[in-house]
């Protein structure tokens, strides 16, 4: 029995190691080559340089693409938190005609592939003769991302003790007071996670930005087009490394923030339960 257990543990360790190497390895290599003193991305290493970072930060295309993505995501994320939370509240707390239909529609927006949504947006704007730009990208991002917030927030709302809300109402709280004093404070961890995930969804989105951006490129579209032309590659490495480091730090900060909130309130909310709660 004990012998068997050890084999199991070894297998588990091997599995986790292999998965981590396969998932993380390529990214680490990408980062390493951003410091390689050569214009071609291949072995052997020619020496250490920060040249590519200097070039990347001076590259107008890269800077513009990054700025575009940050601007779009900064509009999309808060808008999605507001819309998504309102929709979650409306769907989980009220009983009305067509409730199933509307919640199904929110779910459908999450299941329909981004390629199809991107193309449908493209033909929609072309048909209406609206010029494709960052505005159309932002609009489409909001439409596909707020359902994610609705899913995350509804998962929390369904598990709430409703006695507090009922007590607030019975004590004469208005809808506004109910929201600001009772509901939103309890939703804080889910809202923080929603804000970050919505930002990431928008920032990372390729298909919708690609089809709806016209001549305006977001960061993923810029990377894609530079890679298709296959030049300036070390600059892509440098900027991709920078962006990835920031993304890792932001998700980690979110984890710390939610843990801190959980400790202060003594509630069992953590990132894991939030993420898995949204799926269950």
């Amino acid at each position: 029995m004990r012998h068997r257990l050890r084999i199991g543990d070894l297998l588990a360790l091997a599995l986790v190691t292999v998965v981590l190497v396969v998932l993380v390895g390529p990214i680490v290599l990408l980062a390493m080559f951003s410091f390689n003193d050569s214009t071609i991305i291949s072995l052997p290493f020619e020496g250490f340089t920060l040249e590519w970072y200097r070039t990347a930060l001076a590259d107008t295309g890269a800077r513009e693409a990054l700025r575009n993505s940050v601007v779009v995501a900064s509009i999309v994320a808060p808008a999605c938190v507001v819309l998504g939370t309102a929709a979650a509240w409306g769907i989980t707390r009220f009983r009305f005609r067509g409730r199933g239909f509307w919640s199904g529609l929110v779910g459908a927006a999450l299941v329909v592939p981004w390629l199809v949504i991107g193309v449908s947006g493209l033909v929609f704007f072309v048909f209406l003769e609206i010029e494709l730009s960052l505005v159309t990208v932002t609009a489409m991002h909001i439409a596909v991302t707020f359902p994610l917030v609705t899913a995350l927030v509804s998962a929390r709302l369904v598990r709430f003790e409703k006695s507090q809300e009922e007590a607030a109402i019975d004590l004469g709280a208005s809808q506004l007071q109910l929201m600001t004093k009772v509901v939103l404070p309890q939703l804080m961890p889910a809202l923080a996670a929603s804000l970050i995930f919505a930002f990431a969804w928008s920032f990372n989105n390729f298909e919708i930005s690609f089809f709806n951006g016209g001549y305006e490129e977001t960061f993923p579209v810029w990377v894609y087009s530079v890679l298709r032309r296959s030049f300036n590659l070390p600059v892509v490495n440098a900027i991709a490394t920078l962006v990835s480091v920031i993304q890792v730090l932001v998700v980690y900060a979110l984890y710390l923030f939610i843990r801190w909130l959980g400790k202060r309130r003594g509630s069992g909310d953590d990132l894991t339960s939030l993420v898995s709660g949204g799926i269950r």
Partner: protein
Amino acid sequence: MSVASDPLVSESRLGDPPPAGRGAKPGGRRARWLPASYLTVPMLVLVVLFVIPMVILFLISIGLGVGRQESMWSFDTYTGLFTDPLYRDVAVTTVLIATTAMIAQLVVGVPLAYVMAFRSGRFELPLVLGLVVLDGLNPIVRIYAWRILLGRNGIINGSLEWLGIIDKPLDALLFNEAAVIVVLSTSWLTYTVIPVYASMKAIDANLFQAAADLGAGWWTILRRVLLPLAAPGIFVAVLLVYIPLFTDFATPTMVGGTSGYMLGQAVNDLILGRGDLASGAAMSFILLVCSGIVAALAYRLSRINRLET
């Protein structure tokens, strides 16, 4: 991240009535407008930017004129796509690649979820966090990272040459179906593992001990206890991952070459390459219908299974 629409409908499925909110209070006249005040704007956004574009997508695929073009209603685009042997081959390749990638992810992801849920002890949280962080990275950047690894002058070729195992670089590493499968699998693994992990977290670990005490071997435990209880999570994973897999177009474009050409690329090439809006719209609409079928199947299966377990 977490994506299933499940929580939205779960309570009605469980049979108890939707929570009686303020709106449901007897005699409350507010019941009429309160839900509307929360829902009008979000649902308007969905109708205008999600439903109507889909309708227009379909209308354009059957001949709605764009701009100065006159409308010419017909299903020719569909018959064209369905009878073209090129697209039949592409469809076969796409289904093969997507299915293989899905199976590969389940083969790795289900054991990984099990290890995370029951065997990893204090490493459980870092592992979950690691998967979430990895998923937060830009997908295009992750595809590019694989190109660096597999490319002609890439790390694998470079190392093999340096070790003297091969004389000239292997071209077979990149620009084929295998590369697409590997890259797709690693891109979506987080979405496969997390739902399965979530459903496994809900399993009482004592069940395994009980089954073992009753004389069940590991294979019986796996087949009769673990998999049935984890099945809803597995179906959610399929729902979340399989649809994006067969509609992906960035991955095959960047690492697929000609043999890894997929339907997603066909949409892109029809619209942006050939400027054939109608055929591109038709192809997108076919993909939409396929996603609907996959979603309905996965959803049905996950619910049936929940009733049985």
